[in-house]
């Protein structure tokens, strides 16, 4: 009963945030990037929750329970990637975005390369294809998690939770998304506090590690890094490299574009908060591994380790707050990605707005309609598709997306390419990645690295050729 009441109150509070921020949204700039006025600290909290997401609460501890320490290596390898991009690249992205007047990832890449409509179409379509799976996976998570708490079956729970998210996102735009994420950060801190308390009350890190080693030494010192099928050292290094480029995903890029300041000082604060939050995740994973020695019986579903630990060791009110934390984590992945994807898809129609002399208010209305359509597609797909397929597609979508756009995003700041360099890099690496995935060649990390290498190589080679052929470019 207590978790249900807390959930309902939270959903009402979210709607309230949307209503409050509705008045401040007058243009596309307000809607998508909050007028580029959000402070690095506030945006940092939102970015932090978007970075960690539901995987850090449920999936990562579950993977820790199933495979042991390799998941910890993958996440801890991610933290330097977050820090490097947030401190070194983010202020440069923001400064360039302000110069170009970009309100979306698509707009940024296109305008930075003096590209045309072909580049807009390519990036927008790929972003939509990669992110629609995120929306579906998030909605599925909401339906599965909150149906039992709210006393509803899967589809009504999915629709109710999804409706609340779309309502406040439609009303308040990025400002509402960010504020709800900041609230979510608070819940994440509660989950972190409980995890630290659980560790401390069971002998500390050293004590628990000793008990885990006594139970099964391979959990903390595995001979190979399952499920990644590589040595532990190569997992660390691979994830460090890959996560630098992973930070160029469109919904993360959207945060850099929206930063209210392009100063290094602001970037340092933004980095501090982002990195501080990602540092919590290894603790969640360690708690997941500790599930073997903390819980009386083995779990059939590894992903249930965190909820079961919270249910076993805390009272219903704390478990209710944990459930809200999970909801918030799903929500932050969903609302931020939805807004960033809508901004990208909206770029497809921008020439039409200009052609038919649409006013800023009309453009804003079209943007909201696009967001509603994307949401409706995701709800339909989520309520009619098998869950396991979605998780696989989510990995393919995000890893693939981050790798194929590597050339025209982060590499742009090392040496600028040309518009056909950017276009060829994305198109050719998408084709290569699709072939690898469809034919089942290599593991998913290797597939990503091949696409990453192709994207960077083609970006520079095609740009060099274009400059030779047409020196003016």
């Amino acid at each position: 009963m207590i978790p249900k009441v807390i959930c309902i109150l939270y959903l009402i509070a979210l709607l309230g945030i949307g209503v409050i921020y509705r008045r401040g949204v007058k243009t596309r700039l307000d809607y998508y990037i909050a007028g580029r006025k959000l402070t690095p600290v506030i945006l940092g909290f939102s970015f932090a929750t978007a970075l960690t997401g539901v995987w850090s609460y449920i999936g990562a501890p579950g993977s820790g329970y199933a495979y042991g320490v390799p998941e910890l290596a993958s996440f801890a390898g991610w933290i330097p990637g977050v820090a490097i991009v947030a401190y070194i690249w983010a202020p440069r992205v923001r400064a360039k975005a302000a110069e170009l007047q970009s309100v979306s990832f698509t707009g940024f890449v296109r305008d930075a390369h003096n590209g045309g409509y072909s580049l807009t179409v390519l990036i927008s379509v790929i972003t939509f294809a990669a992110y629609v799976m995120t929306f579906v996976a998030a909605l599925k998570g909401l339906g599965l998690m909150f149906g039992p708490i709210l006393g509803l079956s899967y589809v009504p729970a999915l629709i109710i939770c999804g409706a609340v998210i779309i309502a406040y996102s439609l009303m308040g735009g990025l400002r509402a998304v960010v504020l709800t994420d900041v609230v979510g950060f608070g819940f994440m801190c509660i989950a972190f506090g409980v995890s630290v308390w659980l560790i401390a009350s069971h002998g500390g890190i050293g004590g628990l590690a000793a008990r885990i080693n006594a139970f099964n030494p391979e959990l903390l010192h595995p001979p190979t890094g399952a499920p990644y099928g590589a040595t532990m050292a190569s997992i660390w290094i691979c994830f460090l490299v890959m996560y630098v480029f992973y930070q160029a995903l469109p919904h993360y890029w959207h945060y850099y574009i929206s930063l209210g300041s392009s100063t290094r000082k602001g970037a340092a604060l933004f980095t501090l908060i982002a990195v501080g939050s990602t540092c919590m995740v290894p603790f969640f994973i360690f708690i997941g591994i500790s599930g073997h020695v903390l819980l009386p019986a083995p779990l059939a579903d590894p992903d249930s380790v965190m909820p079961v630990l919270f249910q076993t060791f805390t009272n219903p009110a704390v478990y209710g707050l944990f459930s809200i934390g999970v909801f918030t984590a799903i929500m932050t992945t969903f609302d931020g990605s939805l807004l960033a994807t809508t901004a990208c898809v909206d770029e497809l129609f921008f020439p039409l707005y200009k052609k038919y002399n649409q006013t800023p208010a009309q453009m804003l209305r079209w943007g909201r309609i696009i967001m509603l359509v994307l949401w409706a597609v995701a709800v339909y797909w989520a309520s009619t598709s098998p869950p396991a397929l979605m998780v696989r597609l989510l990995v393919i979508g995000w890893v693939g997306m981050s790798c194929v756009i590597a050339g025209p995003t982060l590499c742009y700041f090392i040496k600028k390419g040309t518009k056909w360099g950017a276009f060829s890099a994305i198109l050719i690496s998408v084709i290569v990645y699709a072939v690898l995935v469809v034919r089942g060649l290599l593991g998913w990390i290797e597939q990503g690295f091949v696409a990453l290498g192709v994207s960077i190589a083609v970006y520079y080679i095609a740009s060099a050729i274009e400059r030779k052929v047409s020196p003016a470019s």
Partner: protein
Amino acid sequence: MKKGTIASIVIIAWGIASVIIGIIDPVLVLYTGFPGWIAATLIAYFLSRQEEKEEARAEAGEKGGAVK
């Protein structure tokens, strides 16, 4: 060397160091991750702030010189 550059080096150096620590023993990450990253980003923050102040001072000095 500019202070912002030093701050970037601090971030990258600690990033590489944290990965090496993790390769040696992943459990050590739980001890070193939080304090290490908080220290590295705070150092970056103070260096960036100092650089900004110096730039502002230099800019004000240039403007003052132009007026004179």
